[in-house]
Structure formats: C-alpha cells, structure tokens
C-alpha cells in the first residue's frame, strides 16, 4: 500500500472511531437523562428540594397543565411546602432526543394524584423538558406539561 493509501485508511479509521465515540456519548447522555428524569420525579414525590437546587438551571421555568408558570425559586418553594402531598406519581414513555453534546429534550407522560395548595389534583399529563449540560452536569432549563385529552 502506498503512503497516500495508508494515510487515507488511517483517516477513515479515525473518522469511524470519532463517529462511534460521538454516537456512544449521545447514547450515554440519553440514558443519563432518563435516569435523571426518574430521580427528579422521585425527589418530587418526597418533597425533596435538594435535587432541584442542584439540577434546575438558573433561569429555569416551569409551565404546568393548570396554567401556572413557576420560576426556579417558586418551584423549589412549592417542593418545600409540606402541605403539598403526593399520593402517587409515575412517569412513562420517556423519550430523549439529544442535540449535540450539550442540549437534550425529553418527552414523557406523568400520571399523578396529589394534594397541592389545599386542592386535590389528579391527572395524566404529557411533558417536555429541556436539558442543558452545564460543565458536565445536566440541568433542566424548562419543563412544560399539558393535559392528555380523555385522561
């Protein structure tokens, strides 16, 4: 094989390795976000605000299916409110799409039954969360949920 041929084979092999590493990293990110999504819900069920403190980005905004917007501070305050009681809550059909190595969007269904701000609330919602990679830590930049018709 000529020097040029060897160089081309080497470059092609290097490209394959780079592509494979990139796909692997994106797969890892998607899996990591799925796990974080579950952790987020577990923390919510336990009124545990520490998870949110670490994993909500500054500038975070939440839109819920009841028509309210909440900032990071308001969201955390709600989690700390011990009169809010979660009887049950589960997420399903979690799908994650990554965009480069620093942004991802997850879509999932959330079914819950809770006593929130003195009112009984139970429904199934569909949610979209935006995740950003902040120096190696995935944080939620936004979440928005809307009611699934007929549920």
């Amino acid at each position, binding site marked *: 094989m000529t020097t040029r041929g060897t160089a081309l084979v080497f470059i092609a092999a290097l490209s394959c390795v780079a592509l494979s590493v990139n796909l692997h990293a994106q797969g890892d990110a998607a899996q990591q976000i799925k796990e974080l999504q579950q952790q987020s819900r577990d923390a919510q069920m336990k009124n545990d605000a520490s998870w949110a403190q670490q994993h909500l980005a500054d500038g975070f*905004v939440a839109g819920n299916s009841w028509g309210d917007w909440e900032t990071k501070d308001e969201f955390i305050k709600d989690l700390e409110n011990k009169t809010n009681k979660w009887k049950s809550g589960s997420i399903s059909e979690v799908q994650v799409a990554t965009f480069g190595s620093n*942004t991802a969007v997850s879509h999932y269904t959330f079914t819950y039954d809770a006593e929130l701000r003195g009112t009984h609330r139970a429904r199934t919602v569909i949610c979209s969360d*935006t995740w*950003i990679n*902040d120096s190696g830590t995935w944080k939620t930049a936004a979440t*928005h949920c*809307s009611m699934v*018709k007929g549920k």
Partner: protein
Amino acid sequence: MKRMWMWCLVGLLSLGSAALSQDNSARSGTEKAVAALEQQWLQSQKTNNPDLVAPLLADKFVNTARDGKVTGKAESLAAAKATKYEAVAYDDLKVTAFLHAAIATGVFKAKGTDSLGKPLDTHERFTDTWVKMPNGQWQCIASHQSSIEM
C-alpha cells in the same frame, strides 16, 4: 513588589470584568436573535405563510399541542398549511439564553379555522426550545403548548 501585585490584581479584575461583560453581551445577543425568530414565526401565522416558519424548525422538531397530540416537523408544517388564521398575537414573550440553547415562553392568542376546517379560538401558553445548530443558525427543536383555563 507591592506595586506589581497591585497591577496584577487590577489586571485580573479587568479580565474578569471583560469576560463577564462579553458573556452578558452574548446572552443578550442570543435573546434578541431568538425573539426575532419568534416574531418571524408569528408573521408566518399572520400571513398564513408556513414557508416563513419551515427553516426555523429543526429536522428533529417535536410539537406537543395543548390536547397532548405530538407531531414532528412535516406533520406540524402540514397542519400550519391547512390552518387559516384571521388574527394572531403574542403576549409576554420572554426569551432566556442558556449555554447552547434558549427558551422562549409566552402566551399565544389566535382566531381562525383549524386544519380540519373547524372554528379556532386559541388562548394558550407556549414554551419553545431553540438550539444553535453547527451552521450557526438558531432552530426550534421543541414546542409545547397548554390551554389557559379561563
């Protein structure tokens, strides 16, 4: 020696201040750019011209409508083409820039006829997620709407 330390400190503070100022300026630039794209999206609805919004949507774009219906780019554009707006407006449009993404939130009001030809009277909140693509163009990767219960 004391003077040298002082100059080093002044230099460091200046560098830090310049970096902070550059960061704020980049954020502000992103927020203005994305707000302009949101206005282009609104313009496409005002003029019933989906061609204006098509380049703003990423190939992997996902729309979640207020009734929970999830659609991709092609289906969303087909619905936009079939919808006829008579009046549209945004309220409280706010854009927040993050590292490589931006979130636009606001209220969308519209009247007209939907893609099935039924009367449309919408009052909803939306969250749009924008990402800077490798070619430098900002594109919307996800949009989510929920009804405002009156």
